[in-house]
């Protein structure tokens, strides 16, 4: 009986407890790529951050 109560409690509680222990605050799941070069330059000037230009090809 007690075992069943404990199991039910942990099953219900895990979804609420997990976020509290995970370090996802402010973390991005993807790189925030800019689309326009002029906008990239403007953001770089505004933030003082350098630009990472990645050039790829398909195929």
């Amino acid at each position: 009986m007690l075992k069943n109560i404990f199991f039910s409690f942990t099953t219900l509680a895990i979804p609420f407890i997990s976020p509290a222990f995970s370090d996802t605050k402010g973390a991005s799941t993807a790189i925030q790529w800019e689309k326009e070069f002029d906008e990239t330059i403007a953001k770089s000037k505004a933030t003082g951050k350098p630009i990472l230009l990645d050039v790829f090809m398909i195929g």
Partner: protein
Amino acid sequence: MTYPQPVVIDYINKNFIPVRYNIQANPDIKRKYRLLWAPTVIVLDSDGTDYHRFNGFLPPDEFIPQLEFGIAKMALEKRDLKAARTQFASVVEKYPKSDIAPEAQYWVGVVDFQITNDVNAEIQAWEKIIKSYPNSIWARKVSGSIPCEKE
């Protein structure tokens, strides 16, 4: 792949404004940055001037040191010697096993000389290349500049 790695995503979002182009669809970018092949990654300043580039895919433990090296080269070319010194030394300290580390140590020596105008400061930094990276091309580059030990 390098980009899906959380450590790389976090590093780029924190330290750069990233922009991405398909080389085949952007001839202006290809021409402006004299691009020969892809993938190519280039570190630019806020004016779009390029300071460091590398080709091909790299794992995170080589990719991030390359980007930090690019920031150091930018500081050096802008004559912010203190920032350049800190950044080059940081590459060596944080990523001692990366391929770019011996080159970063080489530039530590260059910057030390430019800051102090003392050739011994440069030699001291370059001796670390001989000691820590004896098989690198950078050890061969500096070996002629370092005086032989007295017997």
